[in-house]
């Protein structure tokens, strides 16, 4: 699906319960109105509402991890290996006697943070790249887009594998390892963002408001970033939301292959991978990290799907 360039979406703002702004209001009031409009729109889509509730739960759990985690996630206890769920270990213990519940929480906190930063990074480089490329057009555009096409030629996980391998060879540890992972994920998201924003810009740039800005004497850069950008933001939001789910799958897959986070850092992918050896005797250990990944990805997908329905008025009638 992600290969499809989304059609030029328009924010369906003014319908139904949107409040009309008085002529002069402060930025705070403006924000409050925008939020209440957004909430109103959101409730119309069941998918988006469910996704939002799941996301709120997820983010709360991530934020509250230091307080709701019951045990040290990396403390080993050989006398309590492979325990079933109990009062002390809510979801049982893994092969080294570590508390699975606490590992899930800490792992999720880290995973979600990395995914958010990576997607933000991808947007931060992809949007200006695509907007400028589409706005200037001509030779700049051709060269810029061929570069993007080149990056898109790497199938599946391969681009990540190359970058993560480099990180391993340069012995990037701790936060540096995370930064390289973020770079890889964001960099690989860039082509999609660039294409999407370029496509929207090409459509927007024909419109009259751009003409008007130019007539007033605005410079190209200012038109591109201040006039066009706000108008192409909704397809980008939808795309970024769905991408968050995908990024989480990629991080989990890389750690599952043993190329992500080195142990003992709690990580859903590598926990799942090491649980494979105990699948017959203790299948629950493999179940929990998998369920956690599913929940998270599903939350982002539901929310993204719902947002798409809301933001694309063509689909509303369906």
């Amino acid at each position, binding site marked *: 699906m992600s290969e499809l360039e989304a059609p030029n979406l328009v924010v369906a703002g003014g319908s139904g319960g949107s409040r009309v702004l008085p002529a002069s209001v402060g930025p705070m009031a403006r924000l409050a109105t925008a939020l209440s409009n957004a909430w109103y729109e959101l409730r119309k889509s069941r998918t988006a509402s469910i996704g939002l509730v799941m996301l709120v739960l997820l983010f709360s759990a991530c934020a509250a991890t230091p307080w709701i985690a019951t045990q040290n996630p990396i403390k080993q206890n050989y006398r309590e290996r492979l325990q079933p769920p109990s009062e002390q270990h809510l979801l049982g213990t893994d092969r080294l006697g570590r508390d699975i519940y606490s590992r899930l929480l800490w792992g999720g906190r880290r995973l979600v943070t990395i995914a958010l930063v990576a997607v933000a990074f991808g947007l931060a480089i992809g949007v200006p790249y695509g907007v400028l490329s589409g706005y200037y057009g001509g030779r700049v555009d051709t060269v810029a887009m061929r570069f993007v096409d*080149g990056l898109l030629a790497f199938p599946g996980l391969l681009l990540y594998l190359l970058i993560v391998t480099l990180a391993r060879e340069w012995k990037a540890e701790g936060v540096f390892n995370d930064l390289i992972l973020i770079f890889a994920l964001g960099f690989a998201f860039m082509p999609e963002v660039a294409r999407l924003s370029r496509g929207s810009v090409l459509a927007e740039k024909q419109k009259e408001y751009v003409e008007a800005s130019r007539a007033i004497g605005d410079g190209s850069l200012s038109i591109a970033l201040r006039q066009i950008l706000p108008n192409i933001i909704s397809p980008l939001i939808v795309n970024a939301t769905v991408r968050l789910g995908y990024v989480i799958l990629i991080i989990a897959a890389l750690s599952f292959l043993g190329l992500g986070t080195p142990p003992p850092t709690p990580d859903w992918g590598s926990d799942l991978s090491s649980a494979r050896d105990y699948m*017959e005797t203790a299948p629950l250990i493999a179940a929990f990290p998998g369920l956690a990944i599913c929940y998270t990805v599903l939350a982002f997908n539901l929310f993204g799907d719902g947002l798409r329905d809301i933001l694309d008025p063509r689909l509303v009638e369906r």
Partner: protein
Amino acid sequence: MLAYIIRRIAQLVPVLLVLTIVVFGFVELLPGNIIDTLIGTEGIDDPEVRKILEKEYGFDQPIYVRYVKWLYRAVQGEFGISLVTRRPVSLELLTGIPATVYLALVGITLSMLIAVPLGTIAAVRRNTAVDYTAQVTSLAGISIPEFWFAILCVLLFSLYLGWLPSSGYISPFDDFWGSLKFLILPAAAVGFRQAAFTTRLTRSSMLDEMSKEYVDTARSLGLSERKVIFKYTLRNAMIPTITISGLQLANLLGGTVVLESIFAWPGIGRAIFEAILQRDYPLVQAGVLVLGVIVVVMNLLVDLTYSYLNPRVKLR
């Protein structure tokens, strides 16, 4: 059309350039180089020896000269010798490609067989229980990590029920029925996720088609609903489905790394993954390059087919 094809092929040049530069740059960016490895194994660090070796391997030349030379050899299929098996890298890759293509093709076919009818029914019976079931299943399908799905399948069908082997591979040319047993689980894991994508796609493009005016015209002419759907809408709706499936097939060739390693499937993805673990970088380099080229060529073919099937697409 011919001019379009030529232009499209010309556009591939910069794409392949980016691909080769990234792949070449990957090995250049590794800490140390092959000289260090060679000297390290010999245990002597003599500046004289180093100089001779550098000359022999061309490291005294500037990087762009080395790139061009590497590219020249790569075009001829010479990727050097695997550091682990000491066999030519091209040979290692060639043995992996058939298994990967086999898995990807069967997976895609399986997904189409499930997804196209399901997506069509969901669109035709919109907002019914069938539609909701299809939507929920496909949403779950794209949210479940494929490696977890694969593990659960192994757990159920191999460990508990004992119906299927948990991993391994037999070439279909050696023993067709025997190879099927090994194929089912990996192909199901590939197909499940693809089917989820394709169901969503088929459903939405069917809905798109069914809202068009020619459908009303056909109905007002008294054609049966069955005829309208099978003769008109489904055909049009299949265009995006087939296009995307073609692109997905290309992507799958490099995207089955995880599944290949779970099921010990001797494909090119697993070859690359094991090469990474064993630090066999010539193999990694060549493998990524070959897969990238395959993807680029497949994308071109899909695009050309698409513009052939749908003449309204502007030939740019």
